[in-house]
């Protein structure tokens, strides 16, 4: 069997979060500030949620306000991959490869029910991956089908919080106030 095919571990312990390195203290804070404010997304959308991602990019919600606008078509230059839409078994190796080919540090947002768990296609389908975190580690999950643009913005802010706090894969509670 193709080794690419079935990603082994679950959920999301495939790679360590890169970053950290030799930096510490205020310098690290500065770097994290820069990283969190310059998340260039990969143009990756598989289905319906992709349209809402486009809406978020478009004039009314405009995620460029946060500095996310430089959508890169190539994973080499992207920082965050927003999994917008269903991931099916045939797509999983592709997603894995795209993720692998991104330069460190890299972040993942699972957008919508499909990317989180298979969502509407969880039961009785033979081809849907039951959650993108079976394939690649996910940093932030945002529920909805599709999540409305504000929800995606909220997810991006949540991701920023995570990066600012050092990018640890632990649970960090954010409430609405500190955004």
């Amino acid at each position, binding site marked *: 069997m193709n080794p690419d095919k079935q990603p082994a571990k679950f959920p999301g312990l495939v790679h360590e979060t890169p*970053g*950290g*390195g*030799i930096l510490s203290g205020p310098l690290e804070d500065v770097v994290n500030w820069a990283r969190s404010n310059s998340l260039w997304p990969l143009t990756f959308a598989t289905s319906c949620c992709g349209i809402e991602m486009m809406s978020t990019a478009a004039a009314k919600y405009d995620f460029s306000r946060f500095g996310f606008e430089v959508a890169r078509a190539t*994973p080499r230059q992207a920082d965050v991959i927003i999994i917008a839409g269903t991931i099916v078994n045939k797509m999983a190796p*592709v997603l894995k*490869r795209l993720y692998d080919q991104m*330069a*460190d540090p890299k972040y993942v947002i699972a957008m919508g029910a499909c990317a989180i768990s298979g969502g509407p296609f969880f039961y009785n389908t033979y081809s849907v991956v039951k959650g993108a975190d079976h394939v690649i580690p996910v940093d932030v999950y945002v529920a909805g089908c599709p999540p409305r643009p504000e929800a995606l913005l909220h997810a991006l802010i949540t991701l920023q919080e995570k990066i600012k706090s050092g990018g640890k894969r632990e649970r960090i509670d954010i409430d609405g106030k500190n955004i």
Partner: protein
Amino acid sequence: MGPASMIVLILAAVTFSVIAILLSRVVLKASWNPQKGQAYECGIKTTGQTWIQFNVGYYLFALIFLIFDVELIFLYPWAVVVRQVGWPALVEILIFFFILFIGFLYAHKKGALNWS
């Protein structure tokens, strides 16, 4: 500053780039896996070799460009003195242009500038 500035500029460019590129090496522990090294082709494993012999439609343009490029080079000294020399300069350049224009028209007629 004189010609020394060239060296300064080159050195500046090189130092700047080297520092910039090396900084991330120092700061970042990057992960690596075999897939990361593969050529990116929309998430699909690339098929076959990239460095192959293949059809460049543009070489004809490059050929003609080369001719015109040389012509352009000769125009520079001409342009500088045209006001001093006056009408003879115009005449000479007219001849020069005329000859080249024939070539241009020929190329056009032959469809060399029709890119296929």
